[in-house]
């Protein structure tokens, strides 16, 4: 097992005007871990997520992926180096079918500026798209327009699209947002499977989910790292209870 952390955040800060969203945060993630980032809204979770996923560059500090400095790379290069994300607010191609959504995500690896060959010629892509759809349980609605899918199905489609680039690091921003308990259970199962194959970092609020799944939790508060530990440590931490979990 490699000693180099798969993702390392070094003294990262991010300010928006006067507001310091992240303040000197340093964390290292080891390959194969399933970590959850938790904390009150406004604690900097979204900003942190955006910094490590290419949504926003840090104002200072460094982000390293497998030892390589990726602080300045363009947002569209993240998928190419092996970091994929699923958005908090569902972000699929609404007028395209579920199958086409995944196929387009896959196509990136094969061809981008090919003008003359028909899409259908890339049969392998279509098959891989079907395989991914099956994995997230959407095989039977492959032809439906993504905009017509139920909320939970759209979230699953997002995951399929994130998996398309075969990422080493999968980032998920509130993957179960708006899902019913049943759908949440299905997603949890999927996340558990995925964490066996790759490194997964989640941002979540559903404590039962997070405590049950992850063995490492990182608590952010006021843009700073508050606590970093396993579920028991987090649950027992007085400060975390005061600002986030509540006393029960």
């Amino acid at each position, binding site marked *: 097992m490699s000693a180099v952390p798969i993702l390392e955040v070094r003294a990262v800060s991010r300010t928006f005007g006067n507001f310091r969203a992240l303040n000197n945060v340093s964390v290292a993630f080891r390959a194969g871990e399933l970590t959850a980032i938790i904390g009150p809204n406004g604690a900097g979770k979204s900003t942190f997520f955006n910094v490590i996923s290419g949504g926003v560059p840090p104002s200072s500090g460094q982000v390293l992926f497998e030892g390589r400095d990726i602080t300045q790379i363009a947002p569209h290069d993240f998928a190419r180096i092996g970091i994929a994300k699923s958005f908090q607010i569902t972000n699929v191609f609404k007028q395209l079918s579920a199958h086409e959504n995944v196929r387009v995500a896959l196509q990136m690896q094969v061809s981008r500026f090919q003008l003359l060959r028909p899409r259908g010629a890339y049969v392998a892509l279509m098959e891989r798209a079907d395989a991914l759809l099956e994995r997230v349980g959407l095989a039977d609605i492959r032809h439906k327009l993504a905009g017509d899918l139920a909320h939970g199905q759209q979230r699953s489609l997002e995951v399929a699209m994130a998996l398309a680039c075969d990422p080493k690091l999968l980032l998920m921003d509130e993957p179960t947002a708006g899902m019913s308990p049943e759908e949440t259970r299905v997603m949890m199962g999927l996340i558990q499977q995925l964490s066996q194959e790759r490194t997964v970092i989640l941002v979540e*609020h559903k404590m039962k989910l997070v405590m049950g799944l992850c063995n490492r939790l990182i608590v952010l508060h006021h843009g700073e790292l508050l606590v970093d530990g396993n579920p028991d440590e987090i649950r027992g931490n007085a400060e975390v209870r005061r600002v*986030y979990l509540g006393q029960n």
Partner: protein
Amino acid sequence: MLKVEQLNAWYDQSHVIQGLSFEVRRGEIVTLMGRNGAGKTTTLRTIMGLLNKCKGQVLFDGEDLLGLPPHVRYHRGLAYVPEDRRIVPGLSVLENLQLGLLASNRRGEMAEMIDEIAETFPRLKERLHQEGTSLSGGEQQMLAIARAMMARPRMILLDEPSEGIMPLLVHEMFELFSRMKEKGTTILLVEQNVERALSISDRAYILDQGRIVHQGDAQELLENAEIQEKYCAV
């Protein structure tokens, strides 16, 4: 207080609510539960008058609301807090609150209401002059509820208020709902956090594909193993 009789509603061609009948008695907290797409949000929106194609009866204190535009329903004492909160950017917390009473003919009570709301929502009191959208998600949710409370509604419709909110604020929120009930506000709640919702509710209905498939006492439902299995969180 609210009686829904054989309600049918359509989104374009889709028949989303099919013959729904239920009621919410004065001073109750009633929860609507069910999986996504069951029609819970649609039901609330139809009651508020935000859906164009609908048939059936929506009786609020005996008066049929069907045909009345949403703002008139608001003046009759029915308030709605949508899932996406709709805090107005560019306005402070105070100004967002004022919006809740501005269009009413009771706007003279503005100062009094602000004081009252500030007492009920201490977090908002601390941030009265902050810009509305700079608040955290949970605080924005509180603001949306507070704004709806400004007109002293007799009944308030809440769409997934705990969604995406941190545990501490979820706890505060549900305690707030209990306090609101004590003060006489009737609440119709749509929630995915079923245990919390049932723990403060009187009764609940389970919706599936636009119809009611189960109903009963909140306590009974909470103890029902099958319901636990199917609808409650992990």
